[in-house]
């Protein structure tokens, strides 16, 4: 570990903290339907969209209507994407002549992109046409991100509103989110990436002759436009198979830094939106602080583990950290930081091979996802996931001050606890359950690249990543088999929607409640005590469940490595 390395980490945190209130203030105005500096330009477009679609923007929806609208929207998105994947061979913008995607892979990919997971059982440049990349994948990158954000906003409204039956209008929220938040950031962002050296073309792949005289096909395409939203919307699906490790997808250290900032930007800002909407920004900062504590702990462990390298390598005379699977233009700290950020948020883009991390360095990304992607998390999903844990925390500890637990003025009662537990318990069912099946199912075991605890980690990581809608891969595992395609799609769909529906039920229940006035007897939810408590509950309730699995995976591997056994 070096001072310059830590400086990068501190700089990253400082920039995120600085962006949070600015973007938070702007997004609050957007979702409150207030005037912003973009209104003069965008309002006519927005009005035209509502008129065309026949949406009455003044009409507020009950939580159930809101949720059903969201689900129908996803069914539609799924069907369109699946059709595009299957029909790409006969559709235009296919200079590389990609053939139709196999049904099981198309199913997995469609599920993956509508759930903001972007798990990729395919290599982008060798499987997808430009049309699919743009109209199918980039399109869903925008919409799944917008969906996550508006669901978080709807839940925030549940906390903020009192004695109300409605939590907003899904169509209006999605439109405003895309138009006022995502597009205005992505357009200049994509141009900046082009300037940094990223391709943006509809032209065909380039053939080059190498120095040895061999012929090499260099894949290009509309990369920058897809990468901008892939990062900002925490989607993570790479244009290329190598994702952000590919020089065209992440050309320089600066583009790398820009990308990790954009992964956290919206998720962090949403905590501020929460604070503003419930009338106390400190409530938002407390949530961000809890996320920050978990984040920094993760960064410290991974950075330390990667920088320390392994005793086996040291024994071979290779001093320094573990550079296996890392790009030299990023080095150890930028790779470790990227790995923690991409798994803390539900991004899933990777700039290094997590499979090649040390056992403990690779365990942190896994834990980040197992906690439910609440450390800043996926855009929106991170906040509502965190709020579910807040409900549980406030309920467990809130009783200790001698009052019915309440959070930002809302009493937390049976219904909220029921829904929060329902959402939280689905995570372990999915990743522990599917992993348990896979490790004893011979065809699934055959997909592992390594034996022993490392192979176990590959499978556990795959299901964890898909359930948590992260999409990053440990690599090593051959995921494009009918078995993994199908079970993975199940994990992604259940992991996404089984969380969302209870979260929306909570939003509806909370909106109907009166807001209780705060007093000296109110459980304090802004100070360090609450932050510590929240972190404790997340680790004990969310984290301990995975200890047996982690003990058999990365922990066993790490201890074996110390004893000189490798897998």
């Amino acid at each position, binding site marked *: 570990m070096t001072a310059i390395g830590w400086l990068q980490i501190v700089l990253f945190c400082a920039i995120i903290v600085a962006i949070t209130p600015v973007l938070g203030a702007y997004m609050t105005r957007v979702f409150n339907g207030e005037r912003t500096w973009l209104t003069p330009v965008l309002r006519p477009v927005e009005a035209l969209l509502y008129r065309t679609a026949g949406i009455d923007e003044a009409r507020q929806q009950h939580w159930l209507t809101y949720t059903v609208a969201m689900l129908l929207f996803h069914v539609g998105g799924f069907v369109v994407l699946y059709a595009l994947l299957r029909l790409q061979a006969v559709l235009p913008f296919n200079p590389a002549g990609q053939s139709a995607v196999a049904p099981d892979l198309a199913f997995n990919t469609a599920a993956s992109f509508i759930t903001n997971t972007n798990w990729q059982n395919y290599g982008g440049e060798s499987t997808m046409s430009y049309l699919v990349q743009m109209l199918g994948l980039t399109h869903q990158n925008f919409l799944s991100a917008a969906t996550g954000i508006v669901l978080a906003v709807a839940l925030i409204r549940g906390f903020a509103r*009192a004695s109300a039956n409605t939590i907003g209008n899904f169509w209006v929220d999605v439109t405003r989110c895309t138009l006022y938040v995502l597009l205005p950031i992505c357009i200049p962002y994509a141009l900046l990436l082009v300037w940094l050296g990223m391709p943006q073309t509809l032209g065909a792949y380039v053939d080059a002759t190498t120095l040895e005289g061999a012929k090499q096909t260099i894949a290009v395409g509309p990369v920058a436009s897809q990468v901008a939203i892939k990062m900002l919307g925490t989607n993570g699906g790479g244009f290329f198979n190598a994702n952000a490790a590919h020089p065209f997808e992440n050309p320089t250290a600066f583009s790398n830094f820009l990308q990790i900032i954009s992964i956290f930007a919206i998720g962090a800002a949403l905590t501020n939106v929460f604070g503003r909407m419930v009338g106390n920004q400190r409530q938002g900062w407390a949530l961000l602080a809890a996320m920050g504590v978990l984040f920094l702990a993760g960064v410290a462990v991974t950075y330390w583990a990667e920088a320390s390298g392994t005793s086996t390598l040291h024994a071979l005379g290779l001093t320094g950290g573990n550079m296996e699977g890392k790009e030299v233009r990023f080095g150890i700290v930028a790779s470790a930081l990227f790995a923690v950020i991409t798994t803390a948020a539900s991004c899933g883009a990777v700039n290094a091979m997590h499979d090649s991390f040390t056992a403990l360095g690779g365990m942190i990304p896994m834990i980040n996802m197992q906690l439910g992607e609440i450390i800043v998390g996926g855009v929106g999903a991170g906040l509502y996931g965190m709020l579910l844990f807040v409900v549980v925390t406030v*309920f*467990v*500890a809130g*009783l*200790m*001050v*001698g*009052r*019915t637990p309440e959070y930002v*003025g809302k009493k*937390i*009662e*049976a219904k*909220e*606890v*029921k829904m929060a*537990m*329902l959402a*939280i*318990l689905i995570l*372990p*069912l999915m990743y*522990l359950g599917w*992993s*348990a099946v896979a*490790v*004893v199912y011979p065809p699934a075991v055959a997909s592992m690249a390594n034996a*022993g*605890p490392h192979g*176990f980690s590959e499978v556990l990581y795959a299901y964890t990543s898909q359930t948590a809608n992260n999409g990053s891969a440990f690599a090593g595992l051959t995921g494009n088999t009918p078995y993994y395609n199908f079970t993975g799609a199940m994990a992604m769909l259940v992991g996404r929607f089984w969380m969302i529906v209870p979260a929306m039920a909570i939003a509806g229940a909370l909106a109907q409640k*009166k807001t*209780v*006035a705060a*007093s*000296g*007897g*109110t*459980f*304090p939810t802004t*100070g360090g*005590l609450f932050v510590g*408590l929240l972190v*404790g*509950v997340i680790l*004990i*309730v969310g984290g*301990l*469940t*995975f*200890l*047996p*699995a982690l*003990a*058999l995976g990365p*922990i*066993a591997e790490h*201890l*074996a490595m110390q*004893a000189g056994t490798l897998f």
Partner: protein
Amino acid sequence: METSKLRKRTPANTLLDLAIVAPAIGQAFAKLNPRTLMKNPVMFVLEIVTALTTVLLVRDIVNGSASVAFELQIVIWLWFTVLFANFAEAVAEGRGKAQADTLRKTRTETRAKRMVMPGNTEVYEGVLADDLQAGDLVVCEPGDIIPGDGEVIEGIASVNEAAITGESAPVIRESGGDRSAVTGGTTVISDRIIVRIMSSPGTSFLDRMIKLVEGAERQKTPNEIALNILLVGLTIIFVFATATIPSYAAYAGGTISVVVLVALFVTLIPTTIGALLSAIGIAGMDRLVRFNVLAMSGRAVEAAGDVDTLLLDKTGTVTFGNRLATEIVPVSGVSEREAAEAALLASDADETAEGRSIITLVQEKYGVQRQPAPAGAAFIEFSAMTRLSGVDIGSRKLRKGAIDSVLRFTREQAGAATPEPPGFRATVDRIARSGGTPLALADGGRILGVIHLKDVVKPDVKERFAELRRMGIKTVMITGDNPVTAATIASEAGVDDFIAEATPEDKLRYIRDEQAQGRLIAMCGDGTNDAPALAQADVGVAMQSGTQAAREAGNMVDLDSSPTKLIEVVEIGKQLLMTRGALTTFSIANDVAKYFAIIPAMFVAFYPQLQVLNVMGLSTPQSAILSAIIFNALIIIALIPLALKGVKYRPIGAAALLRRNLLVYGAGGLVLPFIGIKLIDLVVAALHLA
């Protein structure tokens, strides 16, 4: 305030009271019935897995497996865990039953004199109290036990309510007005009353009280339901966490026996709070009953913990209720001593609290000795018409009373309009402004001075209200006084707000306004006109001495009829919630140590390197598992006293309270099991149990 040394009717039974513990042990076995246990999901799950493990044990005994001795011990401790949980509940119930039995004796023997013909109070028939229907008229004579709850419709009697309130001084019950309600089980001491029975058999106050203390009618409160959901959710999560382990182990080339899996599962699920949850609820109710307050539902007790605003009657809560003389101000030309002597004479026969306070003041402050009343003194008693009192000694006519009444008297005596002495009006105004009541003192046509009567605020109420404020509870004083007087007393007592010249409508409006702002309100009341406000309040404590209407409107009844009781009720409510929260936190925090005990023990056979996780250095894998199970069972027994007594409530504000409880029950819950399991392991190893 006397609240700090509140009389408790029944002392808290000690845990070791054999009369409660012995039957509770029997009850613990009876409660193994799955249908009973089903109400407690965590314990029900525990019973199922324990039964399953027992079956496996039998199989292994038949097959002659090597690990039978270990499995037998695990199974025994699993059953102990279930039994300990049942025992906790049985002890809590047993303490209530002891109270109920005393009450029940009163009820069973009662016979009633039911009137046969309406209008004829002389003709009645003897029936069993249990056979009385609502609407029946009964005659109660001295020595009779009133057979049921009802209303006096004719007559006036003194009634001993010791059976209900524990207070042996008789109270007056009469037809009409606010003292017409009588309670079944109380005894008429003098006179004869006709009572209309208001309750149907089995629903009387006494019946409800018995059911309440026995816990027979106990329904889960909203918070308890939510907590149960949380516990069930955690249990399901741990099902996933443990059920997937055999597959992981199989991949790693090992096997895990079902008994070991069950052990891990049982130690992880929140058995501690699950076992003690209902005991905590019963004990909370019991604590309230011991403070002589009956709650109509557990929901009301929880609501008491949530209260934001207390509406307190000035009289009896904030002040002593009687105005007391604090000074005598002579007008110019009259000596202090002359005025004091006149005041003493004028009050000599005055038996009111005010009159007696004047005598005390004169003797203590002005050193005037009380002489026997002069012969021929004729005392003039206070009346609402004249609004003055005094004494005629020969031609000397001493009077004290309301200012305008005394001024009228002096005019009549002097025969002409005499000017008020200089400074008199100023003194009167000063006293009135300060919230006191001025009384004029006159000798014939001559005004001597002004007596200052003051509503004296009880000592230490101010601190009590400050305490409440720190807990975020706002106190509001309700008084019939004018706003000036009310404001003075309010600032002296340190209440946050007051309602002066309060009518029942004012109270109701105030409650609704506060509720609209999202606050929970508690109040107490006794009159029929309090009933709407009592019903509207989130916690309405009706006085036992009050009317039937008030008692039905409230959700609690205070048997001592003490208005300060509201504060204790709030504290008991808070204590109940705190105890639940503290034990839940403790229970969940315990899991960390249990993981570290069992996980290395489970996996070390095929991944020996995981021995590093055995941070407690437990002697063998089997001993580690057994120790965790034993700790898990014993902690229930160890925490029964805390569950019954409740976590101590301290008025230090929510943030400080949370920090404290988190440290004790959160951090304590993390650390204690590490120590406990290690110690048990040492014993287990020393005895070669595993």
